[in-house]
């Protein structure tokens, strides 16, 4: 069994109004020293069998083309074996 975790974040140069709103709330709730908040998404994909070769390549492609939009987002994919 394997688990694939894909983290998707807006590129640094893309304005993140949601992150900015969260930042404002953190300050109002008393957190000091906040210099920035960015909000992203995490996908957890559980798979039977091993993740390697063509299957891993397909996962990379899907992370780049479906799970993220390369115009505005970066993604990081990691494979965790023996999970679930």
């Amino acid at each position: 069994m394997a688990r694939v975790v894909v983290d998707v974040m807006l590129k640094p140069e893309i304005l993140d109004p949601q992150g900015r709103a969260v930042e404002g709330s953190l300050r109002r709730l008393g957190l000091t020293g906040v210099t920035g908040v960015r909000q992203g998404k995490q996908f957890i994909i559980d798979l039977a069998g091993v993740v390697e070769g063509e299957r891993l390549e397909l996962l990379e492609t899907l992370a780049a083309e479906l799970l993220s939009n390369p115009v505005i987002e970066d993604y990081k994919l990691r494979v965790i074996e023996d999970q679930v």
Partner: protein
Amino acid sequence: MSVRVGVVTFPGSLDDRDAARAVRIAGGEAIALWHGDEDLKRVDAVILPGGFSYGDYLRCGAIARFAPVMHSIIERANAGMPLLGICNGFQILCESHLLPGALTRNDSLHFMCRDQRLRIENTSSPWTADFTSGQEIVIPLKNGEGGYVADERTLDALEAEGRVVARYLEVNPNGSRRDIAGIANERGNVVGLMPHPEHAVESLTGPSTDGINFFTSVLKSMVGS
């Protein structure tokens, strides 16, 4: 022979009926297309309507891009078929890479719904030929994720090549870079527009009838071709 303009319905489309009605008022034949069907039913042009295809899940337009009907539409658009994406349709066109850039959350974080003044800057596309260059129009705008973004090089290229179809006037409602409300592809046949011309085709319900020109434009361009 009347011109056949397809209007796609995705799960979650809202403005397909209004788009079809606008086509009919302009004098064309509106053909209903279904997201799950690759058959384009011999249409001459296609409109991707506004709404929330697939619930806006993942990203607006991200799942619609992979719908069976989009395979045929992308193929025909690359061969020159006129294709207009309105609001969610614009988002789908960007996700499909038929248009550059992306639409992001409004900078205000608020859903905007207002009658919006625009300037039409490109009248060479099949969707805008009935306007005069620099013409100002007022049509409804309603979006939560309408902020147009692209890198500086892409924005410069869009400006230099005259591919900014429409620009927001008076108010930038969503933080779009360079006040961009609509753009065209290099060939000019694919146009994405965030505001809604299909809601401004009758004086009873719209703030104007300025929107009808988008639909008469494409009919004339098809008859002339």
